[in-house]
């Protein structure tokens, strides 16, 4: 899909761009959105759509689901924008809303948000025990596309914690609060997710090397 950042109407193009260009203008856009200004809504959407969509995509590993969840997150935000008082950053508020939307969806589908009981993990999902024997030397050689692919292959529970911590930058106490687990569990699952990714990257690299 071609990159589209502005509304299509010629006269509105400059205004929407102008709204996007200046940090201070986000505050203006919020106030105008409270009054029902369509340009303000679109400007706020354009400012934050990539972050929200990328989060949804990383957590669901499904483009259509990610778009639906992005839509839902923004709609919830715009419905509540009248209550935003500026105590926290707007982006933080929106981001939290997006995470909650995704987590609710995962729960609705009975997908594990995070494995609470480690004994419930399948042998296939759990990272293989490696007593530090293999020297993979991944540092400096992981590319984004490769990493994106292997994240999609992670079991949902590991993926959630990994995305929230390593991609989105949430701390373990915040993650524990959002997903309803202990801080210890969050740390443990993050470690397992990284180990699993390491294993998947190793496999991917070995397959690449084996090709003629």
């Amino acid at each position: 899909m071609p990159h589209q950042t502005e509304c299509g109407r010629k006269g509105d193009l400059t205004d929407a761009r102008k709204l996007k260009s200046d940090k201070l203008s986000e505050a203006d856009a919020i106030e105008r959105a409270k009054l029902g200004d369509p340009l303000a809504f679109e400007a706020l959407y354009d400012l934050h759509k990539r972050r929200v969509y990328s989060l949804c995509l990383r957590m669901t590993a499904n483009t259509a689901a990610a778009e639906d969840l992005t839509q839902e997150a923004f709609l919830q935000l715009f419905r509540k924008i009248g209550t935003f008082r500026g105590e926290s950053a707007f982006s933080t508020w929106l981001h939290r809303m997006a995470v909650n939307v995704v987590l609710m969806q995962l729960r609705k589908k009975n997908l594990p948000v995070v494995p609470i009981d480690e004994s419930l993990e399948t042998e296939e999902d759990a990272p293989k025990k490696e007593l530090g024997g293999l020297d993979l030397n991944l540092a400096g050689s992981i590319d984004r596309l490769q990493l994106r692919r292997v994240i999609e292959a992670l079991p949902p529970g590991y993926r959630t914690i990994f995305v929230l911590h390593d991609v989105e930058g949430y701390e373990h106490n915040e993650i524990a609060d959002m997903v309803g687990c202990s801080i210890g569990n969050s740390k443990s699952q993050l470690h397992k997710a990284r180990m699993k990714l390491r294993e998947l990257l190793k496999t991917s690299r070995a397959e690449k090397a084996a090709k003629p």
Partner: protein
Amino acid sequence: MTCTEFEQVLPDITGGDREFEQEQHLRSCSACRSLVSDLKAISQQARSLQACEEPSPRVWNSIEIALRQEGLIRQPSRGEPAKVHSFPSRWRSAWLLPVAAILLVTAGIVQYKHAANQNVVQVAPAAASRTQLASLPTEETMADQQLLQSVAQRAPAMRDVYEANLRDVNSYIRDAQESVKNNPNDEEAQQSLAYAYEQRAMVYEMAVDRSLE
């Protein structure tokens, strides 16, 4: 400290705050050093995935329609008259004229007729009486099909999105028509119907406008 023992405490020390024994082991064990280095590389590269993808235009289209239907968009867009939809200059290409005609016929001239005090408030496309509304669905369907064909020619990927949007807005119009039929003197019902037609005109405008891009 063995490698097994080191790996067991690894989840708690990835932040870098290690005890002396753990540091000692790391200095002496290349395998564990490599493991820690790999995990750190994965974590660092992960941050670059933040905000790196973009949703398709259909997401904003759907949001905008929902906002208008819920009445959260209350002001007209800058440069856009309150009720009459003007067309951008680039629409003057010959092939757009039929589409513009469809837009005008469908959105129509919004007139209000109040039976009791004879204000001219007739909610229908031009020259169509209330009793003739029943015939509009066929005309609307034809207009919709022509619009969707135009969109499919210009931007095939967007056709399904606009088909879904038209379905929603036509359903809204039918509900509003029913409401006017049951309560002919209800101004709110008449305004709802007018608003529903405006929504439809907006979908048309967006469909042609965006498929051009």
